[in-house]
């Protein structure tokens, strides 16, 4: 069994799975249950000036038979008194000294407030701090959360204040509600942040009730824009995460990856793209803490299979595989191939190629089963048929190079090579 022990910013935890700052980490009773279940650490739900929350708070989108493909919330930071939170944090740390305890913070945007909050929380005891610069709803109206995280100069200023007094490692949590996270990351790095956590939730409106015309979630006849998370946001998170790994200035800064991590596979992907560990929330909000078992067992088995002994062995391995489009090899060419023994004749490859791609799959009528075959000369190797095919490995994409050498767009243009004729 591979060892899942992970250290991020010097903070040790028995596995790379932390619970993100959110309702599952807002009080002792939950966090104790999480640690009993086996979670490696928590980021305690954001502390700051006590707030008041509304009812209802969440809305979800479903896809097919899956509920909560994406979740949105309009809940604010912790609505419990600060001293109760601090007392419970101490109690939890005493009971589970081997688990990571990071506390999320959000103070009013002035130096004194941040100094007071940081000192009070770190004096109380914790392994690290996470600055909530990401919350996209509610708190932004008060000049906090994403209002800080969307402006590099404000973000930089706040991190400077924090670093003036911080004695434990500081993670800056980045908002995805920007065209790129890199400028904010660079600015906060200059201000001294020790690491990043990303992404926070994405601004969203979840939908509308077709009978009442009320958008979700309904708070007595009105709603407000909320923060979107869950499996649906994972690709967005992975992209933002990767951009930090690709930029020289931020490439070596530790990152805690967040955004739709539901299975160990998701976690491995985040780590291959540069996250030192991951934080999970929506999956727990849907299934409870018990999912930690498969997160650990799946990752451990995968590491054994690949020969990795430590979780740090594979962090960032996939980043070099991401490049600019103009660097991609135009001579690389694949074409679809249908394994007729595996084909179940659903026709999805044909109709999608016919209507949405390059008319490269022919149909020979049969009763009741048609036969579908690839017209190699028409196939552009787009993957669409393979993606919609319900049978694994029925459609494969064997390589049919157009030329031996690597030929990118820049070189293609330089040589004045001909474009497609039709």
């Amino acid at each position, binding site marked *: 069994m591979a060892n899942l022990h992970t250290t991020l910013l010097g903070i040790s935890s028995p596995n790379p799975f932390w619970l993100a700052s959110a309702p599952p980490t807002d009080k002792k009773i939950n966090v104790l249950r999480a640690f009993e279940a086996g979670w490696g650490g928590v980021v305690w739900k954001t502390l700051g000036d006590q707030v008041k929350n509304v009812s209802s708070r969440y809305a979800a989108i479903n896809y*097919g*038979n899956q509920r909560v493909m994406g979740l949105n919330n309009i809940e604010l930071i912790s609505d419990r008194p600060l001293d109760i939170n601090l007392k419970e944090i101490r109690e939890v740390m005493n009971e589970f000294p081997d688990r990571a305890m990071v506390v999320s913070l959000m103070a009013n945007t002035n130096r004194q407030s941040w100094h007071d909050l940081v000192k009070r929380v770190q004096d109380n005891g914790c392994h690290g701090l996470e600055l909530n610069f990401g919350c996209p709803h509610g708190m932004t109206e008060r000049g906090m959360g994403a209002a800080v995280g969307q402006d590099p100069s404000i973000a930089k200023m706040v991190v400077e204040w924090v670093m003036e007094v911080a004695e434990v490692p500081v993670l800056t949590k980045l908002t995805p509600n920007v065209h790129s996270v890199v400028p904010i990351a660079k600015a906060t790095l200059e201000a001294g942040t020790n690491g990043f956590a990303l992404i926070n939730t994405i601004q969203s409106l979840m939908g509308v009730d077709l009978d009442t015309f009320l958008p979700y979630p309904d708070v007595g006849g009105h709603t407000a824009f909320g923060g979107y998370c869950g499996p649906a946001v994972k690709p967005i998170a992975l992209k933002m995460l990767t951009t930090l790994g690709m930029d020289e200035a931020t490439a070596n800064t530790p990152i805690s990856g967040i955004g739709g991590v539901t299975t160990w596979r998701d976690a491995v992907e985040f780590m291959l793209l540069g996250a030192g560990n991951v934080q999970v929330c929506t999956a727990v909000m849907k299934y409870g803490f018990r999912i930690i078992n498969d997160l650990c067992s799946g990752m451990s088995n995968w590491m054994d299979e690949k020969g990795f002994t430590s979780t740090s062995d594979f962090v960032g391995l996939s980043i070099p595989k991401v490049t600019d489009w103009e660097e991609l090899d135009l001579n690389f060419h694949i074409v679809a191939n249908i394994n007729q023994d595996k084909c*179940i*004749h*659903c*026709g*999805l490859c*044909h*109709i999608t190629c016919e209507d949405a791609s390059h008319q490269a799959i022919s*149909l020979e*009528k049969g*009763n*009741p*089963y*048609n036969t579908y075959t690839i017209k190699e000369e028409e196939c552009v190797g787009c993957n669409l048929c393979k993606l919609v095919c*319900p*049978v694994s490995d029925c459609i494969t994409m064997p390589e049919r190079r157009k030329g031996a050498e690597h030929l990118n767009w820049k070189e293609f243009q330089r040589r004045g090579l001909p474009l497609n004729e039709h």
Partner: protein
Amino acid sequence: MSLESQRLAPEEYKRNFADLHPPFELFDTASIEANRCLYCYDAPCTKSCPTSIDVPQFIKQISTGNIKGSAETIFSSNIMGGGCAKVCPVEKLCEGACVYNLLHEKPIEIAKLQRFSTEQAIKEQWKIFERKPSNGKRVAVVGAGPAGLACAHALSLEGVDVTIFEKEAKGGGLMTYGVAAYKVTPEFCEEEVDWILSVGGITVQYNTEIGITTTLQDLQRDYDAVFVGIGVGVARHLGIPGEELDGVVDAIKFIYDIRTKDYSEIPVGDRIAVIGMGMTAIDAATQSKRLGAKEVVMVYRRDELEKSCTDTELDIAKLDGCSFVWLAAPKEILGESGKARALVCDVVRLADEADASGKRAIVPTGEMITIEADMIIRAAGQIPFEEFVKTAQIQNNTGRISTNGLQSTNLKGVFAGGDCVNGGKEVVDAVQHGKDAAKGILEYLHSK
């Protein structure tokens, strides 16, 4: 040993004749199944439906919560899509062709989903179709069975005024009178007919048998065109000694009685032999068991591979505790004081090779078996209404009406479809005949 009614307590009848395939009770559960559908293109299920219902489309519509649209998709192809969802042998039609079978996975429950949409439409009598204003054309339809109703509905939509002549007191034909009660209830059949007729433009004259006071010639004279959808008649006689004995009954009559009377009024024997292995034979065997018969034996002169019912149907009979004697050809019915007491059969085998008819010949082995039975149900095929066909001088093949393109007969303006043409197939086949005939009739009326 004698035939007795009232063998069971009321609650036992109720349990025995409860819905064989309970419906989805919640949208949520229907939606789970609907979402399992792959939404195949040029779908095998649709191609395997005699009425070509766009199955992926109606299932997709269930998944989006568009139940009315889903019902419309079904009914546009098959106006008896509600009843068919309950009685179709889907294992050899749509569900049998579902691509999941090729993955050795459970096929989509198409019938159950179809029932989900259509049952709501029928129960709540949704207005789905709007007929064109009356165009003054008048068509007579003989028989308010699936073929006749499908033809009448399609004609009415186009503005034709239709009069249906039905010899029974209710419409629906085989659906109402000839199918096992645990598949479709009399109440549902009535609601379904009401719903079909609610489109307007169709008048039904019940208890009116053509050929008695009104003839086909009269209809030809009084109407612009005629559709004949009279189905088939009683069960074929076996032509063996003892068939006149008390306790020897016709499966069609037996099922008709079950469908029209209270279960407690239907007499059954202690030991029943059912002759035949088609759907009707299964319906007779299972229902006699459900009426309280102690033992039911199904007797067939071919082997299990050559049975005409589906495996699913055979399983119903097996689960009901029926037993089976294969390769036994009825030879004689023995009686005592005018009552049947046993069925004697030749033990036969099948020839190794198929003969010119495409079937393997039945060869007696010389051995015989005697099956004790106080009730013997004939269910070895039905006889066409030969008398009617001959009197009306419709071209036919041993009583089955011969048709050309779009169900036209040799008589000008007379069309035919359903069991009276195909000799007795599924409800869904009859519906397609009715649709085709309506098309033929509209063309004919146009060219007149």
